[in-house]
């Protein structure tokens, strides 16, 4: 039912799926996500909607193979189907003409930033984008981001593309130069989002980040995705995933994201061993 229309490898361990999902495509807005299940014994995996095509009835997902489920997902091919796909979940990004918006994307986070940058551009904003990755091999969506940004900065850890440094560097420089920034949207690894928040905090530049705590249902039913935002507990799947970066308890988020690391390893090893001798836990 939820067919993979197109599969691309964007970078090592980073894959793009274009999924047939007309109902989701019809409703999707920048900032929202889906939850998928590969097969009957699979877990519910949340992924951001990186793009959508209402006419074709498709959505684009971009994922990094980090553990057993995303690795298994990466073995699927065009024409294969997912067992479950639900969405669009979460609140859409608040898009309007703010003036100047800086869109910061780090690593796999560039994918979800893209529809937001595009939306901000379409709303009449000056869009300045900063994208970064460890090196140029794993930098994704450069062309797409160029197309929707007035200015694009690139930063890599090793300097293999753009400036050598972090995405926060061009941001700091802009602020130092007195550039008037009305909003910063940052998506990427938690450490990056936290650093962006620290850069903009002293200047009180409104800053929005998209959080990815561990989720189960994605409908507000389990509370597993709760994060502390301004002393209040919020459910990221329904109250977010975007929140005011200056209020987020990033340390708490990181701790909760690490909750199952030993179990995730155990599952990965179990899958690897059962799949060698003919996989028992997954039908693919």
């Amino acid at each position: 039912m939820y067919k993979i229309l197109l599969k691309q490898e964007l970078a090592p361990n980073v894959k793009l799926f274009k999924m047939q999902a007309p109902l989701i495509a019809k409703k999707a807005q920048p900032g929202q996500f889906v939850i998928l299940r590969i097969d009957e014994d699979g877990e519910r995996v949340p992924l951001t909607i990186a793009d959508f095509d209402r006419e074709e009835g498709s959505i684009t997902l971009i994922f990094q193979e980090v553990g057993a489920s995303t690795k298994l997902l990466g073995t699927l091919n065009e024409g294969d189907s997912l067992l479950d796909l639900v969405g669009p979940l979460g609140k859409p990004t608040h898009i309007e003409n703010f003036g100047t918006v800086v869109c910061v994307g780090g690593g796999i986070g560039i994918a979800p930033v893209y529809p937001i940058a595009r939306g901000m551009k379409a709303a009449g904003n000056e869009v300045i984008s900063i994208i970064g990755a460890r090196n140029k091999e794993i930098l994704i969506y450069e062309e797409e981001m160029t197309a929707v940004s007035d200015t694009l900065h690139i930063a890599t850890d090793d300097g293999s593309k753009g400036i050598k440094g972090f995405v926060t560097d061009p941001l700091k420089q802009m602020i130092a130069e007195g550039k008037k920034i009305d909003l910063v949207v940052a998506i990427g690894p938690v450490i990056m989002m936290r650093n962006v928040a620290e850069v903009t905090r002293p200047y009180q530049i409104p800053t929005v980040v998209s959080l990815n705590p561990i989720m189960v249902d994605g409908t507000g039913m389990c509370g597993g995705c709760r994060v502390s935002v301004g002393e209040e507990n919020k459910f990221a799947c329904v109250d977010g995933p975007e929140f005011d970066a200056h209020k987020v308890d990033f340390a708490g988020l990181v701790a909760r994201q690490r909750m199952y690391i030993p179990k995730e390893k155990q599952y990965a090893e179990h899958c690897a061993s059962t799949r060698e001798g003919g996989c028992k836990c997954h039908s693919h």
Partner: protein
Amino acid sequence: MSLSLKKNAMPEQDPKVRARNFDEVALGYEAELAQAEASRCLNCKAAPCRKGCPVDVDIPAFIKHIKEGDMEAAIANIKEVNGLPAICGRVCPQEDQCEKFCVLTKRGEAVGIGRLERYAADYARQQGESAATAAAAAVGQKVAVIGSGPAGLSAAGELAKKGYAVTIFEALHLPGGVLMYGIPEFRLPKEIVQAEIDGLRQMGVTIEVNAVIGRTFTVDELIEEEGFDAVFIGTGAGLPHFMHIPGENFNGVYSANEFLTRCNLMKAYRFPDTGTPIHVGKKVAVVGGGNVAMDAARTALRLGAEEVHIVYRRSETELPARLEEIHHAKEEGIIFTLLTAPVEVQGNQEGWVTGLKCIRMELGEPDASGRRRPVEIPGSEFVLPTDTVIIAIGQGPNPLVQSTTKGLETNKKGNIVADPETGATSKPGVFAGGDIVTGAATVILAMGAGKKAAAAIDAYLSGKRAGQA
């Protein structure tokens, strides 16, 4: 006739064995026991038991059929008003409902009405009776049912019987609501719920899983764009409450919903054959005293916990759970730490829970609910060492549908306001029932509400048909 003052005991798995497996605890009466239990019923003319049943099952009549061995008549009789007897027989709080009013309670124990209802339903299922009933000729109108818990399932069934084209929209990947993701297998085998759902499909009901109303569609779109003539909302009380005490976000602290969903819906008890992990630890504290708390505690035990506490702020008499669940939990070795309220969750550097700081309580004057109010005993704080805390202090309404539907009135708590007799809401053509209206209640009340709303929807749509003719 010499009547036994006691109910015929329910055959059960041995507590020591069952505390480590997920198979059903209560095994059900065999024919002989059922006969014996049915024979205890005096077939009272006034049938006081009936007034305790929210859907008015004709209790003496169906029990008489069992006594006479006419199982077909027994099940037909129950099914006239109760579409889910195998479920209600297992999970109704009978001691507060039908059995509470049984005349036998004056001298001894009530007739095991729930057990007999379960017996009749299981018998019918084993005979291969399909849950499907022939549907009337199609009337040509479409009804959308949101949520597939007992309220939605019973509304859908009733409407399909009357010839409406019914589509159920369910947010999760599996229909059944709390019956699937909340109540554990050892109390309500999932094949029973599945049989009911299969029955609905056979009757022509379409079930769209992975459809979150408020996101995938809004209620207004269902009516204006998707051509539904009426909508029933049965979205339940799925929003978990937390305690708002320090430390609730430490790893190892779960809402009961999350803990039970991981286990029941995502089958974490089979991890790593399934992909969803669950953390149990050695010492578990479950906060709360209702069915949800009992289910979480007994699930933790079955997942391998060594010591499981129920931490409840009132005393044993106030425990809201079904008596049978309390009894079973005790037999299995759950420790009841009563008159105790948590004040803080303690944790370590790595962000994991290490203990639950509690304070002892005593009972004071009755409060608004009529129960004696628990009052803190100053200076009685102590720490219960634990590596898992499960919070089961209640659930509220999920706001997703209400916040995305124009003109749908809600009350202070966020529940949908609906007529208790018809389920009619402030929005024409939109009906609601079950926990989303009443707040967290019972399976039978949700089922009854779905049924009443179906009747009202039928009346509303017949009127519309007549108007068009």
